[in-house]
């Protein structure tokens, strides 16, 4: 495995992940812009409109047929939130030439060309997208936003984040807002698309068996040539100044649920970015694995839940604890969870637990190289981290974590928000900061 990057133009990077473990080549184009209420909705609709047709493949049907002809090349696109950034993602996955008959070889070049065509060469008439594409995708986006409550566990987590970062751009929903959909028109959407493409950070990834020709092909691609250099704005991961949390947010919301979804948002007031590696291990001990404190005490000992765990969001230095519980057991579960956080602060965990969490994390880290998409996302994550470490140094840094480092992180953990999604059968007073 070999990772290299090459700046094609200022603000436009080509990332190459040489890897012969897979039967496929995976290619991606990521467009990154800062999250902003003014643009979040129109950005969210763009991938869906772009996939409807290009100058060369004018309809979605033509695109589908082309992909099927390429031994089922898979195109995918979407929108994600990475810290305070909104990312428009476009992927294509195609079988390696090694595994297809002679007459059809050359699929990788075709794939990346088609991908670039979808992103940068839309089907435009008179400075506007096709009106029916835009209107249909507006309706689809509306469905997505309205469907937000369909997955209750995910909804609870997103709501906790919203409450925790009220009035900050990070609280924005990645798909945007219904009230902003109406203002999108086929011409103003094209104008904002042009602005986006001119100014955004562009990252192009190629993972798999890559030969020199392919790299040259990309640089010679007309769509790439037409892009101008830029100095993109985007937001890197950093440690924000310390801010004490005086009051805990408590939010209870009612929906038609059988099981209550409890989410706790914790802020990590880290002193420096290097502490993030200790925080990873802190999270592992608290709720990251099956022998974590949360899993053991909420699920195994108290038998209160089937899911119980936590995850660490590095970009924002927050930890989210979540579990699905019987609604009546709210207080009981909350008490047990708080006790685990307290126990971490008091140092009630062993050297062995630290070592186990490290082993678990390193194992997961090594496995990253064996999954093409995880590997690609791992490298993309480096774009946002100032103290970027190589794969090997990352592992070494985790190996160095000691109990006292984890304890130091534990002392910097502050419970910020308690969010409970229930059906109204118990009374909890909302306390909003």
């Amino acid at each position: 495995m070999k990772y290299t990057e090459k700046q094609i133009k200022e603000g436009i990077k080509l990332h190459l992940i040489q890897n012969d473990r897979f039967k496929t080549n995976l290619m991606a184009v990521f467009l990154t812009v800062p999250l902003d209420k003014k643009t979040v909705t129109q950005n969210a609709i763009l991938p869906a409109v772009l996939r409807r047709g290009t100058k060369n493949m004018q309809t979605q049907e033509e695109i589908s047929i082309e992909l099927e002809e390429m031994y089922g090349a898979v195109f995918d696109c979407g929108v994600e939130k990475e810290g305070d950034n909104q990312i428009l993602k476009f992927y294509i996955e195609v079988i390696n030439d090694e595994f297809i008959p002679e007459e059809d070889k050359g699929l990788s070049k075709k794939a990346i060309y088609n991908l670039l065509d979808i992103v940068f060469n839309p089907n435009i008439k008179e400075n506007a997208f096709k009106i029916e594409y835009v209107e249909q995708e507006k309706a689809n986006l509306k469905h997505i936003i309205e469907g937000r409550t369909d997955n209750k566990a995910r909804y609870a987590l997103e709501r906790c984040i919203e409450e925790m970062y009220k009035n900050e751009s990070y609280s924005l929903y990645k798909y945007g807002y219904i009230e902003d959909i109406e203002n999108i028109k086929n011409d103003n959407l094209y104008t904002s698309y042009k602005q986006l493409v001119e100014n955004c950070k562009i990252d192009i990834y190629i993972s798999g068996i890559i030969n020199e020709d392919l790299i040259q092909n990309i640089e010679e691609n007309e769509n790439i040539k037409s892009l101008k250099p830029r100095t993109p704005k985007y937001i890197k991961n950093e440690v924000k100044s310390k801010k004490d949390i005086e009051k805990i947010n408590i939010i209870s919301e009612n929906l038609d649920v059988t099981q209550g979804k409890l989410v706790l948002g914790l802020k990590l007031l880290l002193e420096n970015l290097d502490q993030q590696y200790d925080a990873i291990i802190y999270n592992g001990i608290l709720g990251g694995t099956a022998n974590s404190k949360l899993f053991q005490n909420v699920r195994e000992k108290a038998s209160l839940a089937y899911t119980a765990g936590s995850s660490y969001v590095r970009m924002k230095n927050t930890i989210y604890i979540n579990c699905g519980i019987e609604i009546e057991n709210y207080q009981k579960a909350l008490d047990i969870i708080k006790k685990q956080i307290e126990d971490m602060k008091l140092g009630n965990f062993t050297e062995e637990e630290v070592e186990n969490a490290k082993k678990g994390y390193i194992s997961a880290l090594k496995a990253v190289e064996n999954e093409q998409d995880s590997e690609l996302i791992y490298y993309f994550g480096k774009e946002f981290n100032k103290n970027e470490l190589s794969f090997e140094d990352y592992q070494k840094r985790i190996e160095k974590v000691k109990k006292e480092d984890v304890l130091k992180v534990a002392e910097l953990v502050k419970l910020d928000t308690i969010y409970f999604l229930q059906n109204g059968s118990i009374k909890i007073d909302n306390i909003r900061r």
Partner: protein
Amino acid sequence: MQIIHNSKVKETLYIEKLKNGLTVMIIPKKNVQKKYIIWGTNYGSNDSSFIVPGEDKVTNVPKGVAHFLEHKMFEQKNGRNSLDVLTEIGVSANAYTTNDHTAYLYECTDNFYEALDEFMDYVQNPYFTDENVEKEKGIIGQEIMMYDDYPEWKVYLNALEAMYHENPVKLDITGTIETISKIDKDILYKCYNTFYHPSNMVMVVSGDFEPENLLEEIKKRLLPVEPRGEIKRIYPEEPESIVKEKVEQKMEVSRPLYAIGIKLKLLSDLKSEEIVRKNIIVQILLNLLLGESSQIYKKLYDSGNISYSPVMDFEFSKTYAHILISGQAEEPEVLYNELKKQINNFKKGNIKKEDFQRLKKTLYGEYVKEYNDVSEIARMFLVDYFKGVNSFEYLEQIESVQYEEILQTLNEYFDENKMVLSVVKA
């Protein structure tokens, strides 16, 4: 060991049936750090009525025992939980239960053999007490309630209930709060002793291994067992007809969810290569009917009825076979009627040859992709094994599938009167 090489994906399968009856399959992958092992027993939620070898009376157990057993297998006599022990050494372990099998698995990059000690120890040594069985009822109760909040799960189960009169495939794998309340340690031991005999099990491993060495390591860790006769499984007679065509449930969802079921003739009397062929044909057919390049998809997408392509599955075992097509639609009824119409149209021979050729290529590509990841490879070989199929067969057979077979299968297997529509909406 028997060695089977596949030149299309350039992978090799090593297979051995051990004296105690256990089948071991190894698919080595050079230069990959990740290692994956899965050990399954041919015992799932459908097996709740059976005759233990050597007995003559039928044993009936409550629904949900297979899944309950899966949860309890991790508990050890020394008070430890094997899931914890494995996690401690950096190994990610899990288990799952389906209609026809239960499987235990782990993946890791280091400590594979240390983990194998624990893994093979806990699967071979159950430890159930009244207390630990009672405790699990709370956890599984929450798991059942979690599924109650998934409309996708409800719409799926309702479709199965509409298709099947008697076959237990229509029931929840977990059982219900009521049925699991009847489970005790004696029932668990009885089912364990019946179904966890090596002759009823298969182990599949993929990763950077020397197959012969790995096989020796596995043998070393197997406990001696007496050979044993066959388990007689009793499944209720299932009429060919469906129960009812349409079923609807109200739930808080933003857009209606649908699951269309097509009950098919059983494949159980077919030879394994014919099963594979049928599977290939059905997959191509489904994509011709509703794939992203299909007429129906275009029509429904443009009219705003659907916004993504349906998920299409062909599910079968020895006692059932059906197709399930699911997704979200503004008006599921419209999609359902379009589908019926198109099936009839196809039956008249209105399928383009070029579409068939293209979708064959697509499917070939999908099969090749299955070999990207050791976990996918091992799981695929295990699941196919329980269906009586060697996974390589798909790559071998697809090239020779002919256009004419599509029509044949369509006419033989797709019956308009055996279609159901399940909808969940607000």
